[in-house]
């Protein structure tokens, strides 16, 4: 088992190293001059040149790449050019919004989708199954930003039970911060609920047809035990894979939801940094996203091992 996981870990490190090269290359070819963005249309050529020298934009590319990697390895991410604040603090503050948002959306999705999927598989072909499938069809089709706007109109504008957006900050107002994440998490999770429900349903339909399930029923096990202990346990393997993939999508999908709900999250930071050509922030955030996705994949691997002993043996 350790051998299996350590190979996975090594693969993740190689992926990460390659990702830094790709990220650097992509960020450097972005059209636009950061100094011009900062100083605007009235800037003089001499002031632009002075600013470029100040930020090291005039250095050769390999030097800038090594400088950046050196900083990453010593946990010194440098200062944002646009905001003037340390990149690490900037990203840390934003993660404090985006990670809880993603976690809330994901747990909401799992908690709703798995029982719904089991129900649909168990009641296969009945009105209940059709109802669940209809709901998932809507969930997949509705864009999450539109659903977000509808939620704001209902809960913030019409009934005024939730704020229309914004984020008070964990230190200043912990309760208000949780409240501020409820609607965005709901909006973010809708399509994920739909996808996970479908995956759970089809995985359950497969396992329910297995011989061992028939055996379990034949020996007189209660339906609850058959469903949740025998069938669901095996069905959870594809469900876990998809949930892991979804976690990555949640971080990416948060960009739009954060804009609808005015949440100062990582998605908004990336969006603003691209518009400001704040290259140092873009590079580091994208690498951080890469690390997050790799970490989630590793966690999924660990979950596999716990759920199913076969990878352990195969390794």
């Amino acid at each position: 088992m350790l051998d299996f996981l350590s190979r996975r870990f090594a693969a993740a490190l190689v992926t990460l190293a390659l990702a830094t090269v790709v990220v650097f290359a992509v960020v450097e070819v972005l059209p636009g001059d950061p100094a011009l963005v900062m100083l605007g249309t009235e800037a003089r050529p001499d002031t632009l040149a002075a600013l470029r020298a100040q930020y090291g934009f005039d250095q050769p590319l390999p030097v800038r790449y090594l400088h950046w990697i050196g900083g990453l390895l010593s946990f010194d991410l440098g200062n944002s050019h646009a905001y003037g604040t340390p990149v690490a603090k900037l990203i840390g503050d934003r993660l404090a919004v985006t990670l809880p948002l993603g976690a809330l959306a994901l747990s909401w999705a799992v908690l709703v989708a798995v029982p719904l999927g089991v129900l649909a598989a168990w009641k296969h072909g009945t009105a209940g199954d059709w109802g669940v499938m209809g709901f998932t069809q809507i969930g997949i089709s509705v864009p999450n930003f539109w659903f977000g706007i509808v939620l704001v109109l209902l809960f913030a504008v019409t009934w005024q039970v939730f704020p229309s957006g914004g984020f008070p900050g964990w230190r200043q107002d912990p309760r208000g911060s949780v409240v501020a994440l409820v609607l965005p998490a709901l909006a973010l999770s809708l399509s994920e609920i739909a996808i996970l429900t479908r995956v759970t349903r089809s995985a359950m339909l497969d396992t329910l047809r297995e011989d061992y399930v028939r055996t379990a029923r034949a020996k007189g096990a209660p339906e609850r035990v058959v469903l949740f202990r025998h069938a669901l346990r095996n069905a959870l393997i594809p469900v876990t894979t998809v949930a892991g993939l979804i976690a990555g999508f949640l971080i990416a999908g948060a960009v739009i939801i954060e804009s609808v709900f005015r949440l100062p999250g990582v998605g908004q930071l990336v969006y603003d940094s691209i518009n400001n050509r704040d290259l140092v922030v873009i590079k580091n955030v994208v690498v951080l996203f890469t690390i997050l996705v790799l970490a989630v994949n590793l966690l999924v691997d660990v979950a596999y091992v716990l759920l199913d002993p076969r990878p352990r043996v195969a390794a």
Partner: protein
Amino acid sequence: MQSIPRRTFIGAAAAFAVFPAFGPEAWAQAKNRLVVGMSLEPPVLDPNKNAAAAIREITYQNIFESLARIDRTGAIVSGLAESWTISPDGLVYTFKLRPGVKFHDGEALDASVVKFAIDRLFAADSTVPAKSLYTDIASVEAVDPATVKITLKTPNSYLLYNIALCDAAIQHPKSAPTNDKHPVGTGAFQFKERKEGDSITLVKAPTFRDAGSIKLETVIFKVVKDPSAQVSALLAGDVDTFPGFQAPELVERLKKDARFAVVVGTTEGEVILATNNGKKPFNDLKVRQAMAHAINRAELIDAESGFGTPIGSHFAPHNKAYVDLTGTYPFDVAKGKALLAEAGYPNGFEASLKLPPVGYAQRAGEVLASQLGKIGIKVAITQLQWPQWLSEVFKERNYDLTIVAHTEANDIDRYARDGYYWNYDSPEFKAKWREVVAATDFAKRDELLKDCQRIIARDAVNGYLYQLAKIGVWKKELVGMWENSPTPATDLTGVSWK
């Protein structure tokens, strides 16, 4: 929202609503607290470090003050200098400083501080974005603690205006290095805290010389970029005002709400179809005249939901030196076609239109493409991000056509510049502009400015479309907000709740 039966929504919502209901937050609005919505977030908060208009919209007059001040009508009035005299040759400006002025950190204002602040605007190693406005200054001298003398190399009739801008904010040498993150000025409000990506909070400054006249205790600038989120923030009561509301198509919704006043005023933004005069076929006057005849301004303003005033030159209609030149090349498709044929393009030609990511340009882009299509110019639209637009269009001048608002006041001087992105080069205009700058008599200057407008209108340098409107939305109980936008500012010193 009210027109749809509420039950439908409750039913739909109940399907999802398994979470506990939270009570309404304490929105109770104290009568000395104001939440101002902003469409764009300022990167830093120091106008000497970044050109973003959002910096000026937050700090001008509220945090930072300049020697002179641009008031709500656009007039230049006394600021940190209570009076000034100008020598007859227009070269020496002597400013008398206001007594008792203190910075938010307790430091006093005197002539040496002013000298420091103005010197760094034009110093050789200065990286101030607006440096070019101040390079006519030869020296700044602290005559005595309350008197500052500015000497120019050549007369500049715009010096006072430039000195009144937020770019010439008087900063103290002690706080200047950290003003980007923690601005310290002499204004009525002092910086309290910033949550990047969310809000900037100011509180009334106890050090302000006239603190008794300031009615607001706390001001929160909240960043709301998405137009529909701006509307919901207003409707939900999370924001009291958007002084510069960016989505004209959503204004009707707000007008219906009795809680809000929608006030339409003027800005200094001329929206133009900027044209590369240095590139074939746009270097041909006949082609540019043909394009001018193809432009239907009424239709363009319709696309802005009716907001905007037609212009025929590069000048704001509310300026007293304005002359109406919208009739120079009236909308006439047949005439446009004929001129294009005369220029040697009976079948038209293909052109690219590079659009920056701003609402007005997006809305006008499609309309203009179709208008130019009617005289045979096949326009292909390309969308650019701001940084791309700045590099590709503005700096490298690699474009045919673009749509942009020139938002600085008095910016007709751009037509006299060498190497500006329009590639317009007119000895006649340059000579006229030199006269404008050197004019010490303002009545004469206004006449010269009218000539300037006529020259560029006649040369059809760019397509002159309309003056952007300022759409202000605020709660009806709020008084003292600026109707017009003579300079980027949200001056809250005269704002209070009824």
